[in-house]
C-alpha cells in the first residue's frame, strides 16, 4: 500500500535527481556538441556546461540557479488507484526540498510580484491523465524562466501543414538567439486547441533525446528540423557555432477541422527531468536515474 510519508520522500529523491543530475542522454548530447564545435569560444561554453553538470551531480547541488517552476506529469494506469492525497504529497515534496536542496524561491504572485517560495496557485503544476496499465508513472520537469519565456503559439491555417510548422519553428529559434541558453531542446506540440498544443509542447521535453516520434514521417521531420536549426549558426549561448539545438521533439494530437495549432516550448541545455514508476503494491522504481 502506498503511504503518504513514503511518497513524499520518494518524490523528493526524484526531484533532487532531476535538479542535480542530467539524464545520460542529455550529457551525451553535450559531449557530441563539444566534438562538433569548431571554434574555441563555442567549445569553451560547452566545456563549462559539462564541467558544471559533473560538479552538480557529484555534490548533489542544483545544476542551475534557476531551479525552475516544477511540473509533475502523472500517468495513472486504468487498473491503478490514485490516492486522494497524491497531489498534496507532491506539493509537500516541493516545499520541503526547496529548503533541503536548497532550491531558489522562484514563485511570485503574477501581478503583485510578491515572492511565495515554490508552492502556490497552480504551482507545482500537476497534470494527471489516465493511460492503460497497472502502475502510476510520475515524471517531473523543473523548467527555468529564461527558456520558458521563449515559448510561442501559432494558430496556423489547416493547409499550412508541416511546411508551415517548419517555418514557424525555425523562425522562432532564430528570433530567440542566445536567450533560451542554447543548445536547446525544442518541444513542439501540434493539434488539439491552443491549450492542448501548449501542453504537448512542454510534455515533449520529457522525452529522451535518443527517442524519436513513433510516426516515421514525424521522426524524419524532427531530424530535419534539428539539422536545419543547427544551420542557423546561433551556437552555444548564442555566441555562434554548429549546435543551436540538441534535439527536436514533436508531439501530436488531433484537432478541429478549422485549426492547426502549433506551440513551441524550449528547454535550455540543462534538460532536467526524471521519471519513476509506482506499482499497485506501493513499490517504487526510478526509470531515468539510478537512485540509491
Amino acid at each position, binding site marked *: 500500500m502506498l503511504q503518504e510519508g513514503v511518497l513524499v520522500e520518494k518524490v523528493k529523491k526524484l526531484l533532487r535527481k532531476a535538479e542535480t543530475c542530467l539524464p545520460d542522454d542529455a550529457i551525451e548530447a553535450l559531449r557530441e556538441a563539444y566534438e562538433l564545435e569548431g571554434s574555441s*569560444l563555442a567549445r*569553451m*561554453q560547452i566545456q*563549462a*556546461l559539462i*564541467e*558544471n553538470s559533473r*560538479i*552538480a551531480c557529484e*555534490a548533489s*547541488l*542544483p*545544476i*542551475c*540557479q*534557476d*531551479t525552475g517552476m516544477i511540473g509533475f506529469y502523472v500517468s495513472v494506469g486504468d487498473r491503478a488507484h490514485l490516492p486522494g492525497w497524491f497531489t498534496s504529497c507532491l506539493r509537500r515534496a516541493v516545499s520541503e526540498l526547496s529548503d533541503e536542496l*536548497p*532550491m*531558489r*524561491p*522562484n514563485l*511570485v504572485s503574477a501581478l503583485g*510580484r*510578491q*515572492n511565495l517560495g515554490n508552492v502556490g496557485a497552480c504551482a507545482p503544476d500537476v497534470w494527471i491523465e489516465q493511460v492503460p496499465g497497472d502502475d502510476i508513472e510520475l515524471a517531473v520537469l523543473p523548467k*527555468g*524562466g*529564461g527558456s520558458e*519565456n521563449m515559448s510561442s503559439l501559432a494558430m496556423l491555417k489547416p493547409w499550412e501543414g508541416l511546411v508551415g510548422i517548419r*517555418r514557424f519553428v*525555425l*523562425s522562432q529559434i*532564430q528570433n530567440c*538567439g*542566445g*536567450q533560451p*541558453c542554447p543548445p536547446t531542446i525544442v518541444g513542439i506540440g501540434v493539434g488539439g486547441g491552443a491549450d492542448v498544443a501548449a501542453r504537448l509542447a512542454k510534455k515533449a521535453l520529457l522525452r529522451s533525446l535518443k527517442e524519436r516520434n513513433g510516426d516515421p514521417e514525424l521522426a524524419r521531420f524532427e531530424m530535419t528540423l534539428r539539422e*536545419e536549426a543547427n*544551420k*542557423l*549558426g*546561433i*551556437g552555444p*549561448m*548564442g*555566441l*555562434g557555432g554548429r549546435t543551436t539545438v540538441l534535439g527536436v521533439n514533436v508531439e501530436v494530437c488531433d484537432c478541429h477541422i478549422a485549426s492547426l495549432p502549433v506551440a513551441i516550448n524550449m528547454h*535550455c*541545455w*540543462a534538460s532536467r527531468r526524471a521519471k519513476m514508476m509506482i506499482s499497485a503494491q506501493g513499490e517504487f522504481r526510478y526509470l531515468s536515474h539510478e537512485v540509491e
Partner: protein
Amino acid sequence: MAEVNLRTPVSQEESQALRVGDIVSFSGEFMFCRDKAHARLLDFAHRQRPIPVRMEGMPIYHAGPVVRGQDRSWRIIAAGPTTSFRMEEYEAHILRYYKPRIIVGKGGMGKTTSEALVDTGGAYAVFPGGAALLAARRIKEVIGVYWIDLGIPDALWHVRVEEFGPCIITMDSTGESLHEKISSESLGRLRGLLSG
C-alpha cells in the same frame, strides 16, 4: 582577442579598452542585480535617493542566486546569469547614472544599451548560462545583501569574487556587438533555408 584579469573598481580606461572577443575574469566586488532591483535603482536615481552601496566601477551581474543561511551567514550555492535582455529598459539609464561600466549576464542586450556603452566607455560580457556552480565557486564572500524585501533572487547581493570567469566581452565601447552580428547572420541563413 586578449585574456585579462580586471580588478574592481574598473576604471573607464580599463572598460573602454575591452573589445568583443576578449576573455575576462574579474576579481574584487560584484553586484547581483536583476529585474526588480533595476527598477528600484532607476526609481532612486529619479528621486535622487541614496542607494546602499557605491556602484561606480562595480560590475553589475544579471543573476539571482540560490543561497543558504540567513542574516550575516549567507552562502551562495548557485549563481549563473539570467537573461540580460529583460533589463534592456533600464540598463542605459543605470550605466549613465551609476557608472558600473561593466555588465555581466547572458544572451546579450539591445541597441539602447549598446549606445550607452559607447557613451560611457563600458562593456557587456557573458558568463556561460546555467554554469551556476562554476560561478558560485568564484564567489568568495557575501559582503552584504540589500533590498531583501524584493525577495531572495531579486535582492542586491554584494559579493567578493576571485577570478570570476570566463567572461566573454560581446558588446564594447566602439558599438560592436557579437549578438547583433550573430542575429543578422542567422536571419540571413533562415531566409536562405525558407526560400530553398
